[in-house]
């Protein structure tokens, strides 16, 4: 148990939130992507967060968070009739991504706020450590 562990915990939070920002960026970039089949259409991605638990002195304690993996949105993908598009299938349809830009923006704001929170925690811990090092001066 030490203040040093806070750096690990806050760091894991920052890593998880930046993974979330990364998927959001990918989703936003692919919001207008089209594909030539339903299966090939881009689906919005989301990281799955899970807390890291460890046994300390006989009880479960949290040691931060991690992104377990990436899930894809199950929302239906829409076909758009666009025979002139080189990506169009035999029926003249292109398949659009199921990205909802509003959801993605909300996710982006939430992720960056959470990231900032973790940075603040790290800063406070750093200051406390500095003060501890100066103990007795």
């Amino acid at each position, binding site marked *: 148990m030490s203040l040093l562990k806070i750096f690990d915990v806050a760091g894991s939070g920052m890593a998880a939130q930046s993974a979330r920002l990364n998927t959001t960026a990918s989703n936003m970039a692919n919001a207008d992507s089209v594909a030539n089949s339903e299966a090939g259409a881009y689906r919005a991605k989301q990281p799955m967060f899970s807390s890291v638990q460890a046994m300390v002195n006989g009880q479960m304690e*949290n040691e931060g968070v991690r992104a377990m993996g990436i899930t894809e949105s199950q929302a239906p993908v829409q076909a758009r009739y666009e025979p002139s598009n080189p990506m169009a299938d035999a029926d003249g349809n292109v398949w659009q991504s199921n990205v909802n830009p509003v959801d993605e923006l909300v996710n982006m704001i939430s992720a960056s706020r959470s990231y900032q929170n973790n940075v603040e925690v790290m800063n406070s811990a750093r200051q406390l450590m500095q003060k501890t090092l100066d103990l007795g001066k």
Partner: protein
Amino acid sequence: MIDKPDPLLGMHPQALSLWQRRAEIISSNLANADTPGFLARDVDFRKALTAATGALDGNQLPMAATESGHIGGNPAYAMADADKLAYRAATQPSMDGNTVDTQIEQAQFAGNAIHYQASLSFITAQIKMMRTAITGGSS
């Protein structure tokens, strides 16, 4: 870590290590602010400090026990109980089962940092006092 109250520094080293532990737990709550199903936790500070300093709470008397296994009769049980983390009561339940309220956690973390610094300054003051006693105030 110092595990007994020190005649020079009193209970402050124990308090310091508890504030440290609490900072860690709150930082973990904040890191998991977006984890589905995560339950925010915290330390019962009064209980933990009482156990750490070995001092009895002013409000309670030790229960008489005729067997070492009697609940409440064995201080080791009270100690083990005090070390356990409690779950924070959810103020605004969310759909994914997460009970972390970022604002509350931030406020607690800030308050915790102030308390930590207070304990630090108590220790610094004690050290300064001892230094004055040793040097006769000439340094």
